[in-house]
């Protein structure tokens, strides 16, 4: 029993263990940031490594907690992302006053996501969601001196509370109409009645809010811009990814009876999301804000993938999230490094960046190309598979719109590349020296971008896992 418990909840327990270590660290005599950071990063590496061993399928607490290979994979992806982010935010945290707290909060959100992914029950889902949101709001405020930071935190907490209010209303209606909260029981009792559809829409909105689907996306850009870069990247990659994982499984299993309805909803939402995201990304100057909108557009593509049939849909989405972790974090890594050293975050500031920082420029360029979906970067494969998955339903309007929107997205990614390579600048960003951790992280990302796509084994592995939820 106990062993089973330990193995099944390995990921969660590992994260919690780190949290408690940090807590005692904090209560004990205060150490220098660097030692704390070294320690934390080592722990995270261990945590990430542990994720690959002794995995087992199973359920506990009458389906409140499930685990299966796909979930393990998803958790590993999230672990990886957190590791990379932590390595990248080294430059920023070195001088920060509350390093252990930062990690405690961040990791508790991670734990929340794990519970959310593993949860087999709307209650667990809700708890996980909150656990992965509320601490983030706090962390978003960690640039205590900056007014933008606190504004971002305020926007995040209020709008997320609002969305969870709606979500809860939906859940309550669902509960009222079906009498159960357990995933495995729900499909049997869902009958697609209008009240249930309403409930579903409310729940969908809760998801859509977290993965910032238009029109539930409006908080995204502001929060991304205001929050510290580490938090922004965490929001844009980790929490989005986690919710996506849950979203797919919930849609494909729990709401199967409503499939026809949610397919059309996602159709509308994805088109809206791609277009609006692109249109806004067109005219951004702040790099984080720009990435925010670009990530919204990316979500639109992911939604298209979700509309596909279960296996290729979920496979392509998980695959894309993995790629997205690498590409987006590569971009954010450069941005966070630069903003930590120089405090400049405008795309204009990046004019002539290549003259001073060739390596960083290439990394950023590769990342942007991967986001834009240019071969041979992994992003190309990710987008291709997403669209192929979406095309399985034969909805060519959707595919054509998406394909043409890739052109718009191209424009703004290339705009940045243009700024980096072609424009000349009177005072370009000075040469930024890369500390060890960020360098590691960035190289890891680039390697990922190049390998994940070209090496087909990874996709096939994910695909093979993504039959069962």
């Amino acid at each position, binding site marked *: 029993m106990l062993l089973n418990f330990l193995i099944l909840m390995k990921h969660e327990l590992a994260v919690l263990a780190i949290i408690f270590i940090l807590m005692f660290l904090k209560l004990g005599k205060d150490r220098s940031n660097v030692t704390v950071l070294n320690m934390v990063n080592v722990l995270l590496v261990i945590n990430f490594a542990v994720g690959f061993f002794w995995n087992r399928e199973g359920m506990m607490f009458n389906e409140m907690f499930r685990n299966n290979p796909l979930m393990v994979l998803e958790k590993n992806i999230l672990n990886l992302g957190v590791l990379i982010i932590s390595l990248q935010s080294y430059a920023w945290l070195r001088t920060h006053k509350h390093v252990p707290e930062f990690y405690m909060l961040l990791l508790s959100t991670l734990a929340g996501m794990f519970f959310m992914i593993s949860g087999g029950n709307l209650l667990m889902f809700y708890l996980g969601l909150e656990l992965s949101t509320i601490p983030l709001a706090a962390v978003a405020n960690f640039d205590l001196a900056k007014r933008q930071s606190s504004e971002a935190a305020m926007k995040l907490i209020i709008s997320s509370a609002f969305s969870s209010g709606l979500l809860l209303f939906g859940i309550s209606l669902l509960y009222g109409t079906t009498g159960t909260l357990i995933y495995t029981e729900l499909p049997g009792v869902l009958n697609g009645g209008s009240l249930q559809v309403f409930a579903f829409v409310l729940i969908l909105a809760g998801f859509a809010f977290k993965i910032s689907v238009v029109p539930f996306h409006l908080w995204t850009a502001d929060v991304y811009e205001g929050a510290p870069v580490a938090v922004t990247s965490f929001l844009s990659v980790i929490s989005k990814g986690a919710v996506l994982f849950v979203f797919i499984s919930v849609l494909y299993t729990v709401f199967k009876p409503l499939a026809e309805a949610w397919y059309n909803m996602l159709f509308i939402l994805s088109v809206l999301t791609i277009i609006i995201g692109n249109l806004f990304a067109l005219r951004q100057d702040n790099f984080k804000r720009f990435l925010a909108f670009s990530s919204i557009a990316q979500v639109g593509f992911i939604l298209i993938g979700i509309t596909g049939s279960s296996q290729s849909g979920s496979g392509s989405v998980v695959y894309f999230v993995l790629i997205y972790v690498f590409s987006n974090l590569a971009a954010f890594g450069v941005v966070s490094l630069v903003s930590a050293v120089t405090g400049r975050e405008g795309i204009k500031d990046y004019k002539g960046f290549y003259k001073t920082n060739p390596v960083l420029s290439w990394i950023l360029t590769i990342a942007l190309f991967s986001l834009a979906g240019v071969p041979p970067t992994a992003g190309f494969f990710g987008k291709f598979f997403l669209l192929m998955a979406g095309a399985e339903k034969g909805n060519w309007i959707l595919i054509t719109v998406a394909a043409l929107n890739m*052109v718009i997205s191209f424009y703004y990614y290339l705009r940045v590349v243009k700024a980096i390579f072609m424009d000349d600048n009177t005072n370009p960003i000075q040469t930024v020296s890369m500390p060890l951790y960020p360098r590691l992280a960035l190289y890891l990302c680039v390697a990922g971008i190049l390998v994940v796509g070209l090496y087909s084994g990874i996709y096939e592995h994910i695909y093979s896992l993504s039959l069962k939820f």
Partner: protein
Amino acid sequence: MNLSLLILLPLATGIGLLFCRGVKQVRSLSLVGSVAQLGLAFLLLLEYWKDRAAGNNAKMLYENDFTWFRPLNIHYHVGVDGISIAMILLTAFVVVAGVLVSWTVEKLNKEFFFLLIFLSVGAYGFFISLDLFTLFFFLEVAVIPKFLLIGIWGSGKKEYSAMKLALMLMAGSALVFVGLAGLYFNTGTFDVMAISQMKIAPAIQKFFFPFAFIGFGIFTALFPFHTWVPDGHSSAPTAASMFLAGISMKLGGYGCLRVATFLMPDAAHTYSWVIILLATIAIIYGAFATMMQKDLKYINAYSSVSHCGFVLLGIGMLTRTSINGAVLQMVSHGLMTALFFAAIGMIYSRTHTREVAKLGGLLKVTPFISTVFVIAGLASLGLPGLSGFVAEMTVFMGAWQNPDNMYRLATILACASIVVTAVYILRAAGKTVMGPISENYIKLKDASWNEKLAAGLLIAGILVIGIAPFLVFQLITPGTDVIMQQLAKTIIP
């Protein structure tokens, strides 16, 4: 021989370039690499002839096929027939010439040569791949380097042009993607040869053909979507313009042939009149637009629009000869336009202007360059003995074999364009290399060894095609015959 070498060799060269120190190493390595490509291409040609002579009548030779992404049944499937070998040879020629021409690039030369080589990877991969996915993959691989090449090393309103080019080409490949997806979901495979064996319902073909054809057409300056050509070519650095006009416009033509026409023959029959209409417009209107240009590069760019019109015309006519002509025209236009751009580049690097009005009398001071310029001009106005003539005549003959009166009219109009071509070429030549020379050009230097080599290489190619076209013909005809069989077994007569 293993075709993957064609991809690996440039790739290795490119990676090697990253570790080079100093201008000399970079130049020499890229020259060695590109020459090796050329050698490889010739090796391929020889083997091909040997095997064909040995009576190997397979549709595709040297096929090499292994599964890449099993879930979507994506293969890495390469193989060549005569047409693709012709294209590969063209690419190799242009690459070497491009490297030679850009010998003196100082600014960021490592990156420059890396991108050039990388571009060639895309081109080779595109021409050898028999799997729609890899085809698409390499198609897009070939786009981005152009953007950087133009934007960083270009001249004039380079950012605008680079952006325009990248976006329009990307729009093209987006359409291509839809077409490919359509083919995939109606056949369950990306494999070109496999799809060609299947029968796709005409309705489906009719729906997806425009996507594929227009998508590829944008690459090869299909009429309303050609506007990236003038700006892109004129802003690009010399080598990049050579690549653009010489290679990447051919990607489009090849795709139109290999994917759109070959895999959707019914639709090809249905839409051939549209293709011919657009092609004829492109030919005539491109020629007249060229007549009004003042800038040498614009002249050549617009003439490329007109010449690529011949390619599309040949494809649209759907006769054996005309398709042969289309392929021939692709190769010949690739060579001669590359030569033209090389000559323009040489002139520009000396006089620092491309304004026809500002130039004059260069024949006196730079006889070699001027001669090259004139030869390129004569080639593009279709002088017998040079490649252009053979290609255009083949297209005309093939087009005329299509007995429909409207098609005949289109053919006649297309023929008429050779007069206009003569007009603008001779105007350009007359104003640039002939006439009285202005004082400030009096002490210009003639071509340096690398420029001479590059020009010589291209001229050699042009002459070979022009004097011994039967060589190219017996190279490409088997491929054309395969396409003709495909077109023959359609439902619509």
